[in-house]
């Protein structure tokens, strides 16, 4: 398969998931389009490096890095804007959504950037812990650990005790009394 044919197939498969990835991180319009386009442009330039079997996690990793850079730029821009305004809170990103989704999203937003991202990757983007590991550049065990801890902190924000949040699974006893050991 020649590179262009392969890239067209990757584009076909990845365009919608990457658009949703951008949307899940609050990007819309040209900002979202820029993120998707830059990710796919890198994929096209590095088509020989793209994993043949599972390109999506690799693409998510690229998008993740681009997005983090974008967030840093946006924070700098917001800081600059705040210097010109009497009320810096104007540029803040408060989510005015009401109801349960709003409460959940607000609780999510109160977590650290790292916790938010691992939860978004799993719950919103549908990635497995193994795929999350590719995106975050860690081992699958570490990815599971990060997910576990982030989920626990989200529950704490919502006032949910560990014992009430998990579904009972027959034949398994859930034990949240200690954290798994993180493998770096």
């Amino acid at each position: 398969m020649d590179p262009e044919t392969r890239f067209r197939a990757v584009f076909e498969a990845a365009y919608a998931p990457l658009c949703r990835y951008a949307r899940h991180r609050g990007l819309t319009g040209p900002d979202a389009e820029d993120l998707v386009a830059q990710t796919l442009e890198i994929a096209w330039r590095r088509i020989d490096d793209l994993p043949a079997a599972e390109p999506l996690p690799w693409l998510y990793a690229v998008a993740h890095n681009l997005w983090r850079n974008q967030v840093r730029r946006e924070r700098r821009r917001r800081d600059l804007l705040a210097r010109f305004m009497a009320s810096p809170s104007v540029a803040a990103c408060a989510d005015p959504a009401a109801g349960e989704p709003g409460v959940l999203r607000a609780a999510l937003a109160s977590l650290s950037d790292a916790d938010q991202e691992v939860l978004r990757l799993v719950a919103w983007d549908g990635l497995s812990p193994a795929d999350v590991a590719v995106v975050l550049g860690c081992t699958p065990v570490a990815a599971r650990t990060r997910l576990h801890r982030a989920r626990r902190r989200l529950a704490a924000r919502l006032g949910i005790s560990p014992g009430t949040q998990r579904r009972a699974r027959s034949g398994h006893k859930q034990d949240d009394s200690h954290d798994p050991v993180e493998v770096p």
Partner: protein
Amino acid sequence: MIPLDDDLLAALRAARPDPGYQPSADSPEAAAMLARILRARRDPARRMTRRRLVLAGLPAMAGVAAAAVVGAAVTSSGPGSTRPTVSSVRTAVLDAFERDSGDIVYTTRTIQWSRGPVTTQQAWTYPAFPVPGQQVRFRLFQSQNGVPVEDTESIYIQDNSSGLTQSTTAGPRSAEIIDVEYATRTWSRQQSSSVLLAGSLSPSLIRDEIASGRFTVLGRVSLAGRQAIELTWSSSLGRLTVTTTLWVDAQTYQPLRSVATTRAALHDLLITAATTEYHILPATPANLDLLSPPIPAGFTRTASSPHF
């Protein structure tokens, strides 16, 4: 996708933003993006680089319309006047821009920041609408609260990009910069990989908006004694909304004035209001001299500007 093994993650998944969002790789937007990416690969000059393009005008946003600012100067032509169609205005304005493409566009812009300083910008762009390969000269003279701050000329070769972008993936790759810094009483002339572009002061910005046809014709008005046609459009930049009102001459269809307001969506708070006046100057030797920043007596030359 993995099965979510607890209620919390399931609830979180249900709370994802815009669950009905269904982007498609078959959409026209996706097809255009694919074509752009494939084209960029064939043309190495369009690859991503890590250089800086400095945009004049408002930082990261175009200014927008404070109707109150100009309300006193604009009067309706009355109910008897007919409102031109978007299509007819689009054609006439683009024809006017085509006629003016080799001229100099001189703009003066006043920016009022919310409870902040008043920034005044004078800009000269030549030619008004450059074609790829053509040399562009752009001068920007900025003052704050009436005090000169910086006077810069940027000379570069127009590339194949559509002209206006804040991305570093397109645009000219280097420029000759003449920069006069009033605070330090210094000036410099250097070749730089940081390029000062006209940004929101560029007449191309208006041309692109008009060409898109995504504007509304509000009607005919009298603007400072001249018959004008009033147009408006809005755009969003994240949580900022920029609304522009543009008046074009009813006879020549050249731009006369634009007023832009930038508002924060959250509280509909006015952040900036910018008023811009447009003047089309023929490219005579005397007018071309205006593109070079004068060096005030007593200013010291330095090797480079701290800004480029």
